[in-house]
């Protein structure tokens, strides 16, 4: 089985982001960037499938500028065999991302595609679903458990009401929840080894797809700040405040 993992480079989840002063977007220069957290779960799952002998080749793909090589190197340090960077100077919308991935998938012919359920910058939560529809492969979103036996795929999905269990087959597109697994840390020797693993670069302009933006960002602003509250001394004061000041109980 061949597994393809899609990886996005995003502002690190611990960074307190800043809105640009001209309101054109969020500052991404000189801030720590990392692998999108649920994409790390997708990488980990692919590596586990290889360790279990279920996958024989695991590859990662990212779309972005040259700096996105970082996240691909990270994925290879975690155990991915080789990577593909689709070079694009522009930020792509989910539909364009899925179309780009589809071309890579048509060429690489993986049996399974794994990716994070959403990117923590744009929070769109669309790409896996779109890709599944474009490929006409089964869709499994927000998965927190995966079991593959023969050609059968058993997944647990995290839904608002609890957990949903589905059975499907390969090939499939699965999007990963943070609870799917615990991503490993790349060891120093593995980080060194990853530098020698193959990383192919493809220019997005050579793929012949429309990746232009369909949505124009007019402005990006900071959310309204909450006013600083007060500290109460004890439970009695808290309950009194809630009852007679805030009037919420």
């Amino acid at each position, binding site marked *: 089985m061949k597994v393809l993992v899609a990886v996005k480079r995003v502002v690190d989840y611990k960074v*307190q982001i800043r809105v640009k002063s001209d309101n054109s977007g969020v500052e991404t220069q000189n801030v720590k960037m990392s692998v999108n957290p649920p994409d790390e779960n997708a990488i980990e799952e692919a590596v586990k499938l290889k360790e279990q002998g279920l996958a024989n080749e695991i590859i990662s793909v990212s779309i972005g500028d040259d700096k996105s090589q970082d996240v691909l190197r990270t994925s290879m340090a975690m155990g991915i065999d080789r990577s593909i960077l689709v070079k694009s100077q522009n930020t792509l919308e989910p539909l*364009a991302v899925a179309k780009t991935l589809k071309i890579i998938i048509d060429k690489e012919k993986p049996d399974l595609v794994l990716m994070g359920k959403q990117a923590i910058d744009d929070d769109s939560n669309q790409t896996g*679903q779109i890709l599944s529809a474009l490929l006409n492969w089964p869709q499994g979103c927000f998965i927190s458990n995966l079991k593959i036996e023969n050609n059968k795929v058993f997944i647990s999905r995290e839904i608002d009401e609890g957990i949903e269990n589905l059975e*499907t087959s390969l090939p499939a597109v699965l999007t990963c929840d943070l609870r799917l697994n615990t991503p490993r840390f790349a060891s120093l020797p593995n980080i060194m080894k990853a530098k020698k693993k193959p990383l192919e670069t493809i220019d997005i302009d050579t793929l012949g797809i429309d990746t232009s933006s369909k*949505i124009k960002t007019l*402005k990006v602003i900071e959310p309204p700040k909450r006013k600083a509250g007060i500290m109460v001394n*004890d439970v009695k004061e808290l309950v009194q405040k809630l009852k007679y000041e805030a009037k919420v109980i």
Partner: protein
Amino acid sequence: MSVLVVAEHDNKNLKSSTLNTISAAEKLSEDIHLLILGNKIEDLAKSSKSIQLVKKVIFCDHEKLENQIPELSSPIISNLAENYSHILAPSSTFGKNLLPRVSAQLDVTQISDIIGIESQDTFIRPIYAGNAISYVQTDQKINLMTVRPTSFEKCEEVGGDAALENITFIDSEVKTTFVSREVSKSDRPELGNARVVVSGGRGLENSDNFKLLYDLADKLNAAVGASRAAVDSGYIGNEYQVGQTGKMVAPELYIAVGISGAIQHLAGMKESKVIVAINKDLEAPIFNIADYGLSSDLFQAIPEIIKELDLLNQIES
């Protein structure tokens, strides 16, 4: 033009997220159609006719639609799309799972999780876990959007008299079969919809201690929520998680107990009207956004709060 709202339901009742989404649709058109796809839903379709803002209820009743497999339901939506300027669904796991497939089928870019509507083509959505707010504009032929339920009021369920249309099921080849659903049963209000939410974090230390929170929640007729840390630690199920990758809530009162307040948690609750934080760590970031902070050991504070609430009730009665 008309607006189509895709209903979230359990084949018997509409989820309240559907009512919030209809309110969002009202800002776009007076001609709102509600689409219900499910199994044995004729009664549900008929009762939905009375929703005040809805002009037409369109339903497709088929056993294959019982479990909301998106591969089956999305082509039915795409097939209706040409009649509409906007197609809306709640940005619950239901809508998130479904609508992007329609985006693929119609070749239009979807706008996720809108919290405001400026005009027919301009929408407001949070990015970076709500730490930035983006105003976006599109000139696509159809606008596909998921709607954050807590950002729009619930619409009235009575007073309307919508037309009813039964559409035929279009079958699609699907390789996925439904196995089971693990749903926790509770008499407490729905988390996304409750007036009061009592949430617990890692400070609760184990699942047994969550009983303390349940007692408090029951006193306040509140829903119970949790931080990701508490869910990851196995104290409580994933359906209780509030935050960027969990549920978004905006109750009148949110009580955060033993929650430090990671950015990702704040993303899910900072629109609450009144926020109370109870944490023994004075440095916990949750205090920076709380209206009322109590620096105290929660294992003492919670039973005391319950006692105070009982006292208040006695005085009132």
